[in-house]
């Protein structure tokens, strides 16, 4: 039981850390864009700025996938789910099973895709000439984290009947 609790804490920490890393990437987008404008106005060059901003965009997206899932931010058509009432659990099981399948598939190919970029020494086509596998690490890490989150919720759903996702977005907007 203690092991389970420790695992729970580690996983929750990881999801939150993903969200925080994504937030840092979002701030970096802003910083890079501002630096690029400053550079242009003062006759300087910031080579590869647009490429770096693009990589940060990927980081801000991928790292946040799991975090967004746990906060119920990823949207779904829940009409059928609500209509099912007490039998909702079976439909949820189906959704989480499909979600786990697809995200695991994505994570597998994200890792493979990153490996392929490394294997073929693929370089960015822009001014930055970055080896593309480096920014793609965020894709691998983020999709793995999302797949882990889905496995996590699926297991919880099977054993406790509750997937553990709380939606705070709705509360927030309905509270007004």
């Amino acid at each position, binding site marked *: 039981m203690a092991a389970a609790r420790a695992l729970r804490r580690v996983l929750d920490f990881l999801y939150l850390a993903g*969200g925080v890393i*994504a*937030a840092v990437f*979002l*701030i970096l*987008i*802003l910083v890079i*864009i*501002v630096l*690029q*404008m400053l550079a242009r106005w003062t006759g300087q060059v910031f080579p590869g700025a*647009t*490429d770096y*901003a*693009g*990589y*940060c*965009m*990927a980081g*801000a*997206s*991928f790292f*946040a*996938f799991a*975090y*967004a*899932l746990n*906060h119920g*931010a*990823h*949207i*779904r*058509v*829940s*009409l*059928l*789910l*609500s209509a099912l009432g007490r039998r909702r659990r079976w*439909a*949820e099981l189906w*959704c989480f099973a*499909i*979600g786990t399948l*697809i*995200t695991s*598939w*994505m994570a*597998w*190919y*994200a890792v*493979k*895709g990153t490996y392929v970029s490394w294997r073929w020494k693929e370089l960015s086509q822009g001014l930055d000439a970055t080896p593309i596998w480096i*920014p*793609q690490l965020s*894709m691998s890490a983020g999709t793995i984290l999302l797949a882990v989150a889905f496995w996590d919720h699926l297991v919880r759903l099977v054993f406790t009947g509750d997937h553990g996702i709380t939606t705070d*977005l*709705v509360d927030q*907007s*309905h509270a*007004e």
Partner: protein
Amino acid sequence: MEQLIPIGIFLFVLFLLLGSGVWVGLALMGVAYVGMDLFTSRPAGDAMITKVWTSTSSWTLTALPLFIWMGEILFRTRLSEDMFKGLSPWMARLPGGLVHTNIVGCTVFAAVSGSSAATLTTVGKMSIPELRRRNYPERMVIGTLAGAATLGLMIPPSLTLIVYGVTINESITKLFMAGVFPGLVLAAMFMAYVAIVSQVSKSFDPSPEPPMSFVEKLKNSRYLIPVICLILVVIGSMYMGYATATEAAAFGVIGGLILAASQGSLSWATFTDSLMGAVRTSAMIALILAGASFLSLSMGFTGLPRGLADLIASLELSRFELLMALLVFYIVLGMFLDGISSVVLTMAVVEPMIRQAGIDIIWFGIFIVVVVEMAQITPPIGFNLFVLQGMTGHEMTFIARAAIPMFLIMVVMVFVLIAFPELATWLPDNIRQGPAG
């Protein structure tokens, strides 16, 4: 017609996954996978990740999370409250009252941003709580927002028009100019609809605003100054050449932070709340975009959109019939694809048809924008529906139904464009475009 069975399977999987409650982005992934599996022997997983990576690591996309962040910051300041304080004394007497702020807000913000998702989140974040507080009918609030936010695509700058212009080698400046009047006309049509419904519908019964003298109204207008400044800074940065359309979003965020600080509502908590809120919303949109990009690839491999366009080309229709056929075609396509993908996937076949029929290609760009706008609000795959669901927590069906009148208005808009083509062509034809300087 040997393709009927695979098409049937494709549609069945789409409705099964979306309808049963699988997360939208993942459902699109699943459908795209099935499409790849049915129609091509290419490795689906590798192709998927190629598309996912380019669609999420794109420079032009960076404007989206920044505008969303700006919306989150403004939402946490007194700005939206102030804006309504300034506007409500003037607009409360209009038939339709403050619902017009949705439309006017979207029209103004459309001049700032090239995407409808950014327009929707920024305006909606501010207007929904204020309108709800005043007891405006929810369906009206959501519907007008879903519809008016699509003006982001028509009023320049516009991502759709850039993609269209690059695809067919036409002047993007001309296309931008062509979008101005139709955008304003469409906004006016939305407002007229609101005005009419407010008079006819019994459920339209907002809380009355306190009466005010003219001088008080004027005095209250000072609350509008900050938001007007912010909009001027963002638009100005673009048209004065300080920033590209993508970079202007950065002005928005910084301006929002400065406004919040000047009102004393910028604390560490509001800063992190706005930041994490933006992270969640943009992650949600990014996952759907990733799924949509893979679906678009899958559709390209299936050859369906092009096959359908070929079919229309083979019918040898008159000019009006052709436009009607294309209208239906793009409405159907728009139910399943995002607008930009349906333009890119079909233009190779549609462009020669249009040129051959003697239809003005700039005018057709605006026609395309209207149908792409419709695609944003038609289920099962409609981007504005998704974003509004994320924002309000309403069921997709509720939002889609609320948006039906807006959809119909856009259909009317197509006929207005056909009847008065000058709406789109006058400005680009009459502003002299000789060499600068």
